């Protein structure tokens, strides 16, 4: 059991890195010490049954206090946006390279659809089906 507790403490100490630097620098030691104390007491009082709520609480805090704070920082927002944009661009590029005919078909369709609608609307207005014979 001590091994499992040590593992929890080690994991908790690692997750401390996610929390804001000011909090970590000022209260990091106390947070770690408090978690050790909390888990030891829970284990002594009720074993796994008492320990699980403590671990659950610490893990939810990791998301609500740690990661959410990180996600609000401009560095993370910029990095995540950049990653998503790069991934989208790369996927589209790969698809285009793998399907040159598909790209051409989409291009043609856009051209024809746009052109046809414009000419049709214009023709309807002026009373002519295809004004100037410009329709491709």
């Amino acid at each position, binding site marked *: 059991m001590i091994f499992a507790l040590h593992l929890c403490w080690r994991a908790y100490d690692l997750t401390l890195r996610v*929390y804001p630097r*000011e*909090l970590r620098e*000022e*209260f990091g*030691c*106390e*947070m*770690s*010490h*408090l*978690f050790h*104390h*909390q888990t030891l007491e829970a284990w002594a009082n009720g074993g796994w049954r008492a320990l699980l*709520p*403590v671990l659950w*609480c*610490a893990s*939810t*805090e*990791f998301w*609500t*206090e*740690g990661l959410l704070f990180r996600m609000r920082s401009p560095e993370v927002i910029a990095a995540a946006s950049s990653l998503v944009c790069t991934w989208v661009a790369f996927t589209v590029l790969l698809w285009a390279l793998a399907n040159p005919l598909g790209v051409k078909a989409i291009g043609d369709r856009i051209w024809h659809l746009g052109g046809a609608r414009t000419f049709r609307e214009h023709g309807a207005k002026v009373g002519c089906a295809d004004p100037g014979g410009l329709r491709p």
Partner: protein
Amino acid sequence: MLPLAPAAFYILLVLADGDKHGYAIMQETLKLSDGNFRMGPATLYTNVQRLLAADLIREVAAGSVETDGRRRFYRLSRLGRSALEQELERMRKVLRQAQKLSPALKLSH
């Protein structure tokens, strides 16, 4: 800072009873809420940090209380006591309004 976040409210409420260190605050909060509000170290110290910055609590020397030297003790400041009283008054008002609006809820005084 009003209305206070639940964690901040419990910290102030627990400290109204006297100086306490982090672990005691956590234990008292759990006891006061009948086990319904469990605060972990991160929530506790994030709120302690905010309350210290807002001068609602302050850090004090351990004094005569037995301690292992690593623990830091906190005390409710005058501003913190006033904020707690305001928050309690706000809660009373909310409760009175709720009682007026919905007698069917059978809220006790």
